[in-house]
């Protein structure tokens, strides 16, 4: 088990939502896709989701699936409404200049190998 704090620090991610005690959020699995319907079936509760999509719909999906954190890749920038909604739903939005492939590789190295 890896905490979100470790992930943020190791992967040098920028936190877009309000600061929280990230050491209290445990990440048990990972999933990546840029197609929301695939995420719907693939992403697990308490997992991290890596995606290039930055629009408001990712928050709704994460909230429904109880995914605590989304890593938005390639510097894709969510708008203010998306960030506000994420804060409301207590979903952590993280940003990185790297692509999905790179980030997933780093998460794998951290030991997050479960997909369910």
């Amino acid at each position, binding site marked *: 088990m890896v905490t979100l704090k470790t992930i943020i620090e190791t992967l040098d991610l920028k936190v877009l939502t309000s600061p929280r005690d990230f050491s209290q959020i445990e990440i048990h699995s990972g999933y990546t896709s840029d*197609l929301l*319907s695939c995420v*719907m*079936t693939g992403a697990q509760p308490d997992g991290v989701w890596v995606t290039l999509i930055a*629009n*408001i*719909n990712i928050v*709704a*999906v994460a909230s*429904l699936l109880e995914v605590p954190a989304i890593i938005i890749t390639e510097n894709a920038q969510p708008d203010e409404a998306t960030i506000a909604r994420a804060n409301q739903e207590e979903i952590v939005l993280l940003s990185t200049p790297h692509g999905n492939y790179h980030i997933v590789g780093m998460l794998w190295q951290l030991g997050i190998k479960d997909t369910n």
Partner: protein
Amino acid sequence: MSDQVTLSDSDAGIITRVEELGYELKISQVMTTNVVTLSPDMHMIDALDLIQKNRISGAPVVQNGEVIGIISTEDLIRSLRDGRIDRKVTDYMTRGLITAKANEKVVEALKTFAKKNVGRLPILDENNKLVGMLTKGDITNGLLTALQRDYQAEELIRYRASHLFEDIESDRTSLILRYRIIKDDFLHGGAASNHIKKALQRLGASRQIARRCGIAVYEAEMNLIIHTTNGGFLRVEIEPHKITMEAYDDGPGIEDVEKALTPGFSTATEQVRNKGFGAGMGLVNIRGCVDEMSIKSSKESGTNLYMTMYLDKTSS
């Protein structure tokens, strides 16, 4: 800020609620009322005895109901170091007191603790008579107790909701939720599904059932947003033994339902695909999530999608 260390841990949700409570609770609700006081004619040795015996870290010096000073452990240490423990408390007490009023909100006391270097505040009533003492520990305890009460209240609501059906007698009891879904309203996409999922959880559905219904109804909701002419409606009927979810619209209808059920088949536009939709998995996902799914569609009357989830007693 280091003064607020007792409140700055734990997760953000709790912090926010703690802040709210700081504005809701009055000092009188969290202060210690059973106050050990000293009188001006007491000696430092008496103060030491009282403070030790009562396991406190300081006590106010009171004359005719009014606080004229405060003796803290620091003052005791000073008198011990001077070897003057036989002196009057008035010689060593701290004057120029910082106090707070009992009817003020807790947040005011927190501000005072953060600004001034004091460990305890004498609490006065409107007539400036001492009615209690307040430490940061009292605030923490008060807030934790209030949070606990919150939690119990929420549990009670949840309990009442989950026993809703048992309390009502009828031949067939059901609860119906209806949501109007607006065409192209991507901004609120998923809002109805989220409400539905939360309602199901409140009513005592398991995490699994709530999640599966949530996913199915989300896909249906997004279909209404993306593919309809005028948007449509979601209708969810919750009964003790099953959940029936229905999405209906007035057009344009699905041309070939069999084809629409093929994984990967999508009629979504490039623009919609760019938002992450249009994987051609919506109906496929729905079929995977619910126990029964059926579609009626025609160009004349639009599309009706029915989804049913059965709840057996053990999993709900």
